[in-house]
């Protein structure tokens, strides 16, 4: 098993290099950049080209691409992701503060998704083919089909403005509730379906019938015998969901003005601030890879029979 972990870690290396190279390519391919934005229209063409030349040199934009890639990699390894073209502040600082917010949102949403998903799936399985089951599965189907931004808007309108239960622009824990709910509920849908099907399977096993025949109370049968067996599939999916939640948080952040790196990414693209764009993409992709890596390793620890083959 430790060889598996080692292999997985080693495989991550080329992937990270691939990420680095891809993010670097982004900069090379962008036709305009925030430097130009700042000066076009403000100065005569002569002054503008002089100013742009100075800024270009300052950011090393006038060297050949492979030199830029090498120094970029070097910078990354030393924790220097460059300066934001727009604000001239270190990229790592701009990202750092928001990174925590995105992680908060991801985990809060994960809790919501897990709770709601598992509970509704288990309940649906237990009451299989009743109206409860059908309603629950229908709602989860709706959840997959609903655009997140639309759902978020409706939630804001109902909860914040109409009911006044939650503030609109608060940034503390209160501000976390709505975005976490939106993201979590949508991501709960697939979890509910898998929870249901694996619970159905677990409940259909022979030993369950045996337990019931022995006269055990239902709650014990369900919770202590069926559920743990169903959990395996559920946990497998849930692990995959974390990464997907992390990505899904991006759009949610924009809608709820939750100041995370997703919001930063969208803004950076609109501003053509490619050093920030690069930095966010690099950090996000690396985080995503790490999350999945940790989840994979946890699986092998939970059940050594599973060797999640990603290659």
């Amino acid at each position: 098993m430790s060889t598996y972990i080692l292999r997985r870690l080693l495989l991550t290396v080329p992937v990270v290099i691939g990420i680095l190279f891809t993010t670097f390519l982004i900069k090379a391919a962008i036709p305009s950049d925030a430097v130009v934005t700042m000066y076009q229209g403000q100065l005569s063409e002569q002054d503008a080209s002089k100013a742009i030349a100075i800024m270009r040199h300052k950011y090393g934009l006038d060297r050949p691409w492979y030199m830029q890639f090498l120094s970029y990699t070097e910078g990354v390894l030393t924790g220097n992701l460059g300066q934001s073209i727009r604000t001239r502040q270190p990229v790592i600082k701009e990202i750092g503060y928001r990174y925590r917010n995105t992680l908060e949102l991801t985990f809060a949403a994960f809790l919501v998704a897990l709770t709601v998903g598992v509970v509704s799936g288990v309940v649906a399985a237990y009451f299989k083919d009743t109206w409860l089951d059908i309603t629950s599965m229908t709602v989860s189907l709706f959840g997959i089909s609903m655009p997140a931004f639309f759902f978020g808007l409706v939630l804001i309108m109902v909860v914040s403005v109409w009911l006044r239960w939650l503030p609109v622009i608060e940034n503390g824990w209160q501000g976390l509730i709505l975005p976490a709910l939106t993201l979590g509920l949508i991501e709960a849908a697939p979890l509910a379906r898998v929870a249901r099907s694996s619970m159905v399977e677990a409940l259909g096993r022979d030993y369950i019938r045996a337990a019931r025949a022995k006269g055990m109370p239902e709650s014990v049968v369900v919770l202590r015998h069926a559920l743990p067996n169903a959990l395996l599939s559920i946990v497998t999916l849930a692990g995959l969901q974390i990464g997907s939640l992390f990505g899904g948080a991006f759009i949610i952040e924009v809608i709820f003005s939750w100041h995370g790196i997703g919001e930063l990414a969208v803004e950076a693209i609109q501003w053509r601030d490619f050093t920030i764009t690069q930095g966010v993409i690099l950090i996000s992709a690396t985080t995503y890879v790490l999350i999945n890596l940790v989840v994979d390793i946890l699986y092998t620890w939970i059940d050594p029979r599973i060797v999640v083959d990603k290659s």
Partner: protein
Amino acid sequence: MSFTTAEPSLLALPAAAAGSRRATLHALLHNRTAWIGGGVLLLIIFAAAFAPWIVPYDPYRVDPIVRLQPPSLAHLFGTDALGRDIFSRIVYGTRLFLLICAIAASIAASIGVTLGLLAGSGPAWLDMLIMRLIDVLLAFPYILLVLAVIAILGPSLWTAMVAVGIAGIPGYARLVRAEVLSVRSLEYVEAMRAAGAGVWRIRLGTILPNVVSPLIVYGTFATPLAVLAAAALSFLGLGAQPPAAEWGAMLVNARTLMFTAWWTVAAPGMAIFVAILSLNLLGNALRDVLDPRSR
């Protein structure tokens, strides 16, 4: 985003003979969800095909005198902030919806299937190479990959479609590769190889037809994600640009108009929802029919 890549491996199937294809169709026609999902989709296709004849108004005609009118007999879904008839724009939006589905699925499927085929049935070094490439693509969360492509190509409807197409490649590639790997060890494939059949003949003649059913099912689940992502992009102003009658773009001003003109928000929002839902329903039905085990 929420689609799990664990599911494709559940869909390994033996070869489908002509007889079971008929059985499949039979089962499909008797499946209620298939009717609902398929029915709505047919409606959408119909609307897209006959749009110019169905719509009462030019969807791009600006008429500020009648701006922000609530739904009425004259304007079934009301008018938007520029006085354009929303019903007409929704109908024309079906075209863009289908276009996004088609392009995103084509790019993702064509490149993804090819890569998967090559990886699964080619030499080991090719498999390694392609899988590393896929891993790099998968290293980016779905939305991030889409945003990265948009960052490079600039925002427009076409780049949005390309972006979600590219983001869909890994899913198809891995699915096909898994299928290929499970099929290639089957006896009759071995037999064909022993008989000297060419690699591509095997690939296209035997392996590919087996992959079709799971591909279709996967497609009906992957495409809604692509469409949702494209709509989200338009909503953020990074996809379809105004005055395009794309449903996501019609929601750009949703937040400010929600209170004063709810119909401008409800119509496109419900359109997206219903269209996506029907795709998912059809996908569910197809999966029930083609692989009842997983129900």
